[in-house]
């Protein structure tokens, strides 16, 4: 068992706690989480920090991890069909392009994400909506 230690920021709430993870790199699994001495958490964690990483193991209790791009090929309410990334990307680009062409850029809405995605992905999302689509229709769940 090859173990490594990685420090990261907790995925939950705005407290920004630092956690030290022990990872089994052979099994590609987290072994343990212990509090690290972060500026805000000073060596403490709550229950979500201690035990909230388990969803990465995909135990399928409430929902299931998404692992493949999918398209509803038969329109609304038809089943989702697994497709390649190339097909998914070009399909999204085509449909968004058509809607922009027909109804204008302000007919498209995009969201950022206040959760796991991180700042860089949010920066790109708003840049995509503003520079590529041509609208300021971008927002996220800060309001909700």
């Amino acid at each position, binding site marked *: 068992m090859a173990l490594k230690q990685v420090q990261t920021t907790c995925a939950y*709430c705005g407290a920004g706690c630092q956690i030290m993870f022990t990872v089994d790199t052979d099994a590609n699994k987290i072994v343990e989480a212990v509090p690290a001495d972060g500026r805000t958490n000073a060596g403490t964690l709550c229950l979500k920090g201690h035990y*909230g990483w388990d969803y990465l193991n995909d135990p399928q209790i409430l929902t299931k991890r998404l692992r493949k791009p999918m398209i509803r090929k038969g329109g609304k309410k038809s089943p989702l069909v697994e497709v390649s990334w190339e097909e998914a990307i070009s399909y999204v680009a085509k449909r968004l392009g058509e809607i922009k062409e027909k109804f204008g850029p302000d007919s498209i809405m995009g969201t950022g994400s206040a959760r796991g995605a991180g700042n860089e992905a949010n920066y790109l999302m708003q840049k995509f909506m503003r520079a*590529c689509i041509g609208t300021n229709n971008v*927002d996220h769940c800060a309001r909700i």
Partner: protein
Amino acid sequence: MGIPEIEDAGCLLCFGYNGADSHPIVARRIVRGKQKGMKIICADPRVTETARISDIHLQLKGGSNLALVNAMANVIWNEGLADKKFIDEHTKGFDEFLKVIEKYTPEYAEPITHIPAETIRRAARVYATTKPAMILYGMGVCQFTQAVDVVKGLANLALMTGNFGGPSMGIGPVRGQNNVQGACDMGALPNSYPGYQNVTVPEIREKFEKAWGVPLSDQVGCPITHVPHRILHEKEEKKRIHAYYIFGEDPAQSDPDLAEVREALDKCDFVVMQDIYMNKTGLYADVILPATAWGENEGIYTCADRGFQRVRKLIEPEGDMRPDWQIIADISTAMGYPMNYKNTEEIWNEMIDLCPSFTGATYEKIEKYGGVQWPCRDKSMEDKGTPYLHKDGIFATKDHKALFYGTDWHPPVELENDQYPMTLSTVREVGHYSVRTMTGNCRTLRNLEDEPGWVQMNTEDCEKMNLKKGELVKILSKRGYCITRCLPTDRVKPGATYMTYQWWIGACNELTTAKLDPISNTPEYKYCACRVEKIEDQQWAERHVMELYDDIRAQMGIDTGKGAKA
């Protein structure tokens, strides 16, 4: 102010903020402050953990926030406790503000807030005379149709007592989600580019047009809470929304008035969902793009006190998932606007050079110091960021003066009535997070609390309805209903109910109203009228909940033949 500074305040006014359930590690600072002798004033309709250890608990009636805040300002002024020097030197608009608060005597506020006038006086005196005084506020302020006014009202209290510009003072919103501050910082907002630079200011727009090489819209965009309306009811063809690209959110669970949200998603021509887990929104998505999760990718989050911190890859994703930034870049490229980045640091470097407040916060510095609180304007290693804002009373306005802003209180939109005699407020479950796709899939967290969740009700109300702890009840508003378990408690007032918003079966957003604050566009999650009904056949109800859980799991693509049971 920073989170570590909380415990060194002389006085903490904790307003509509329940740290123990939403941020236990912030609540820890409050507890430590108390041990160090900090005076705590807690304004909350419930006996929260902070209220329990407070010196003064202002157990106000839900929806009366601004009446209480204005009354505290009234006392501070009339009893000569205001910091006149600070008001003269660092603020504007005080005289107009005084005219507004004049009528808000504690006696005027008492019947609105249900707090004795003398208690309001006592709280105002403690806040005004104990230095430094800090204010923390949370969703109990923001999730009302009168939200921004209350934030300004709290800022008025800090301004009139000179509690700005030093450590352990000021006013702090404790942001809920791990990166809600970051999503705002990065300009995932309809009115601002990254770094809070307004889209309507020509010079700023020109800067971004030059950097991004395309002309940009000068129109403020659509707030997320307007989307259902803009899909379903927008008369103006040009403003109607036809495509919705949803990234890392689940509006079909988290947004108010879910029936309307479902109708909107159903009617929307094209819905793209980019996420890590299947969720309720996925049932309406035309395309699903699987992203890597926290723990499987690199990046930076911003915590509630403006601290940029690194998030690192722990394990390799198992499957055909891609990092969010890469998916977005690929779609953009396919649409004719090429985006080529090798890693998150390249994106970050482009961003900080466009945002004066973030320019100095390089990856190198964040790595070296463990984090950087913005503003951090200079790339030299000496600029380590800013622990607290408005140092020495110098504010981020043109003339560096803060502005008093007084408004009158108004009641919530949907009041109790004959048909719906109780009130509902949505709250948080400590062991669960947001729409629960993450924590609902963590074994031990779901062991602690699971579907269909609880409705907290006063014990007297429960006795009147003959409801026992754990009994399944039906709760209804004029928009919808759901089933949940009854939790009798003396921590809530008679007539009020509280539901945590994490549950899919006990989904309180079936009941909530989509009425919004006019400025922040935040829904009034903290107040709507409801009714609780007893279910006579509990065996049926228990079976029904099990069936609903099985249905959800099957809809989410889980093979329900094995695995967890409800």
